[in-house]
């Protein structure tokens, strides 16, 4: 029998704890596939966030560090600066990266740290039970915006990719989505490119992946994909925002 589908070598056999329909697993797998494809498993170092994906270190079979909430880009800076031969990436949710960790991500990008950031934007806090995130859509109901996000007091959703691409420092900044097979393939290309830039020692690379959280959105997995398409896509356009060749 011919094997046509296996677990990536860079993943452990551990069954993930994610809810049915959650896209964290898809993103993990793609990162692992890329590590396999580039053959860099023995020199990759990941940084886990605090969020639903905090246990990513259980699923990825490479070296890993667990960072404090939002601080992964600073921790990654420390590691990459002292061991530039390592391929370093952070994996962060939108509460982690766009709320408590805003300072760290902006300054890592601005310094042009040569590591990769995988940014999961699911428009909500998953782990803590569905509170509003900086990326929550206007009018979206969450446990701390029970009447829907009011942009007059909570502001508008933060577009991290757009914001980071305004920095003058060269970088690769891209937004892709995980809601259809086509988009997943595009996401993988973006992730590959991001790791490639790092391996070429070119620049900071940042991949934003629009994701779903069926549990806290209170929508079925299939319905969540549709919700993402109808609500998030118009506000969070996909595409490359910046490459090191710009300018």
């Amino acid at each position, binding site marked *: 029998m011919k094997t046509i589908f296996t677990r990536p070598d860079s993943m452990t056999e551990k069954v993930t704890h994610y809810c049915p329909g959650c896209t964290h697993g898809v993103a993990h797998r793609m990162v692992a596939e890329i590590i396999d494809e580039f053959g860099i498993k023995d020199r990759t170092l990941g940084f886990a966030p605090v969020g639903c994906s905090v246990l990513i270190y259980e699923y990825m079979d490479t070296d890993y560090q667990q960072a404090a909430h939002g601080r992964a880009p600073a921790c990654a800076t420390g590691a990459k600066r002292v061991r530039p031969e390592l391929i370093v990436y952070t994996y962060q949710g939108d509460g982690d990266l766009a709320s408590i960790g805003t300072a760290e991500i902006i300054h890592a990008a601005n310094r042009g740290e040569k590591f990769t950031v995988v940014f999961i934007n699911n428009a909500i806090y998953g782990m803590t039970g569905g509170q509003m995130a900086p990326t929550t859509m206007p009018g979206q109901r969450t446990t701390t915006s029970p009447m829907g996000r009011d942009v007059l*007091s909570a502001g508008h959703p933060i577009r991290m990719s757009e914001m980071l691409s305004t920095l003058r420092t060269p970088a690769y900044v891209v937004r892709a989505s995980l809601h259809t097979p086509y988009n997943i393939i595009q996401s993988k290309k973006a992730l590959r490119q991001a790791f490639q830039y790092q391996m070429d020692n070119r620049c900071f690379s940042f991949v934003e992946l629009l994701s779903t959280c069926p549990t806290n959105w209170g929508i079925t997995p299939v319905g969540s994909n549709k919700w993402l398409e109808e609500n998030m896509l118009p506000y969070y356009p996909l595409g490359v925002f910046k490459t090191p060749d710009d300018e």
Partner: protein
Amino acid sequence: MAKLLMKGAEAIGEAAIRAGCTAYFAYPITPQSEVAEYLSKRLAEVGGTFVQAESEVAAAQMVYGAAGAGVRVFTTSSSPGVSLMAETMSYMAGSELPAVFVNIMRAGPGLGGILPCQSDYNQATRGAGHGDYSFMIIAPSTVQELADWMIRAFPLSEKYRNPVMIVGDGLIAQMMEPVDFDAVKAEEMPDVEGWATTGAKNRPRNLINSLFLDPLKLEEFNHHLKEKYERMAREEVRYENYMMDDEPELVCVAYGTTARIVKTAIDVLRAEGLKIGLIRPITLLPFPKDILRAESEKPHVKGFAVVEMSNGQMLDDVKWATLERKPVSFFSRNGGIVPNPEETVEFLRKEYERTQK
């Protein structure tokens, strides 16, 4: 008023509103995100202010700003979040600002776990931030007491113009018990015109500040703080005696959730005729030192037994308070495990038997 069955976390929110608090700033963290969830609705109903901050650093600084502007304000968090508030805590004590902080402790260190713990005792009582300051630290052990102290905490913080911190653990925040919000009367906020930055209309301007360029002035200020804390120690110590009336031979010391378990264990052992009592500190700071010291001098007291969900933090205070005149033994569970009554009974029985030798 009829008693309401309420989760501890929600009772914190409701009690704050009953206390006349109009502003709350916080960042979600388990096991107390329900306070923010509750107040996101409730404060809107009463025309108060709620902002979900981008971090605990920011939440605490929002509290600083609002307190400086002279309103009743508070924040809640759990251990890792409280660590991030340390800087502001120091600044608020240094700027003499009243406010209430709540730490629903979970197991540490680091990200630790989300289950109940008492391992932030030192962080709370020694002051998480820098400088010569302290907060008054209160440790309720039932949801009713939690609500009562929320209502008392605001005026206390205003009396001393110093923040008050209430500490609980995940169990007290997550469990539901009956609460009567009228058990304690809310007090009006005293006039703040003398110090708060409400706009210098018809008065000299006010300044909220903790910078002193002149070391003599700073020394003087620190002496002033010391006097405040000494007054607090004279006037604010609170504790509960349980089964202490008949000259118990073993005196337990426990607070918060563990004190409840110790009470159950004492009930079991009392039924067997063992003379064991409990002193439950309600204020962890100021610590009921004099009470414990007095106990340690009594001939019938043969030993002390401390039960804590930590590696022994209050234990040090008990040793200091009793001058170790009598043996101080210790039982703990850690990592998010709450000691169960059975193992607590076994520990106390053993310690009691030791005192009989």
